[in-house]
């Protein structure tokens, strides 16, 4: 009987993607209809779709999107510079590795809420808080990635270059930097996603604009559909940046890699 089912249902990636999306919506609807505990407060996919559309049309989202974008821009920007510098220091010189290792360990382990709240304490309401929080949380992650990349440089290549008397500058540019680039890039993607999330969290706690702020707003009025519509926006944008933009760059720059990299971590 099973051979009557067309193969493409299983093999065509796009169709499977559709099946997946449909499945999610179905599960959601079923949960909405049947789970007694939450029936009163839950929302159906349709309600969320309507709310999202309303939100989109009303153009309210523009102001907050721009605000969030700027928070992330500054926070992520600082994290990139600080993280890369820190990563190089820690990766290349033993002294800095030992001196900073505890800070990195703590930096990665510290719950982001702590950072968000402390930023709120120091910088109060406004735009600095989310930017600072994002910068503080993302930096150790990027530094760790760069550190790992530098540790994994193939020593054989370095001795080869030395044997051929290649100038130091050339070795740095064409061996060291190239070798670390994939890890740096992976770190960059992760740090960006992280910056988005932390900035939103900090916005929730102490900002007057931004996606996080709007989520808080909707929460205050107990509007679940409203909250979800903002989440949908947020997620869509993040996915677009991740796979649309960064993913494309990654594919071009790393064409030499044969493996299929979706860039999970």
């Amino acid at each position, binding site marked *: 009987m099973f051979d009557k089912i067309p193969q493409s249902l*299983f*093999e065509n*990636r796009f169709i*499977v*993607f559709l*099946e*997946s*999306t449909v*499945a*999610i919506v179905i599960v959601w609807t079923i949960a909405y209809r049947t789970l007694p*505990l*939450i029936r*009163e*407060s*839950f929302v159906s996919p349709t309600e969320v779709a309507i709310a999202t559309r309303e939100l989109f049309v009303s153009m309210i989202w523009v102001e907050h999107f721009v605000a969030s974008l700027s928070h992330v821009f500054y926070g992520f920007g600082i994290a990139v510079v600080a993280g890369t510098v820190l990563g190089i220091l820690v990766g290349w010189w*033993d*002294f*800095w*590795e*030992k*001196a*900073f*290792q*505890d*800070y990195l360990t*703590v930096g*990665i*382990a*510290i*719950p*982001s*809420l*702590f950072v968000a*709240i*402390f930023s*709120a*304490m*120091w910088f109060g309401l406004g735009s600095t808080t989310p930017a600072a929080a994002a910068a503080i949380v993302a930096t150790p992650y990027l530094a760790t990635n760069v550190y790992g990349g530098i540790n994994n440089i193939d020593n054989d290549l370095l001795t080869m270059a030395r044997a051929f008397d290649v100038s130091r500058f050339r070795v740095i540019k064409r061996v060291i930097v190239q070798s670390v680039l994939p890890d740096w890039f992976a770190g960059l993607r992760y740090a960006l*996603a992280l910056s*988005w*999330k932390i900035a*939103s*969290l900090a916005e*929730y*706690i102490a900002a007057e604009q931004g996606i*996080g702020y709007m*989520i808080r707003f909707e*929460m205050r009025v*107990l509007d*679940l559909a409203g*909250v*979800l519509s903002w*989440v949908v926006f*947020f*997620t869509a944008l*993040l*996915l677009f940046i991740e796979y649309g933009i960064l993913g494309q760059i990654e594919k071009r720059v790393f064409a030499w890699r044969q493996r299929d990299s*979706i860039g*999970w*971590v």
Partner: protein
Amino acid sequence: MSIQNHLSRLNVELLNGSLKSLLNDTLARAIGLGVGFVLWTVLAAQFPRELLPTPAETVGLAWGLVTDGTAWIHISTTFQSLFWAFIFAMLLGGTLGVLMGLNSYGQNFFTPAVNIGLSIPGLAWAAVAFLVFSYESIALGTLRYAPVVAATLTVFPYVAINIWKGVENIDHDLLRMADAFSISRRRVLWRIVLPNIAPQIFSAVRFGLAIGWKVTIIAELFAGSAGVGFKLEHAYQIYQYEEAWAWAAVFLGIIVII
């Protein structure tokens, strides 16, 4: 031999190589921590007490929290939520991961869900979970489920990915060998499959815990009455900043110990 060589010989004989480098390492680490400590104290002197208490004050307050038992109450609440969320995330993520690793249909089918799961911040899940469970929360007592649900949903994608990679990379030669020798399924599972994916399971556990406790704490922002996250935000709301610092110190202390 040159003088240099003689001297270096002497050096090595004086201090066994490995001991010397160990001292160097510890010194560097001590310098790193020491400078941080000094910086903290100096900055604390500049800023008002509430914004940045001195290390001594923080430790003192933290100690107070520990000794009078408040620390224990809230930390255990947080850890309980974390524990359950961890279990569920491992189950859900593990199942997904296995399904994804077994064949490409599973992979293509579940990838969108995992991708979306990765992008949605813990905050969002926490907010949603709160709103969902808050209705009649006092009557039904369901609000305390919120952090667990939020954390589970945030963490399961990471678990899924790790398990997926593990299952995908199982050495098929070993499986074929076992088949050729007609080894029982149970034995294959226990002695080939599990050891093969053990590293990924460990990785999933580490990720699960690391991200889990962060999200649990975030979720406690909303969850009303208990947990480290709640206390932290509470302290912030009532402008008792030094208490927030104390809580942070307690929690960090625990992390360091674990």
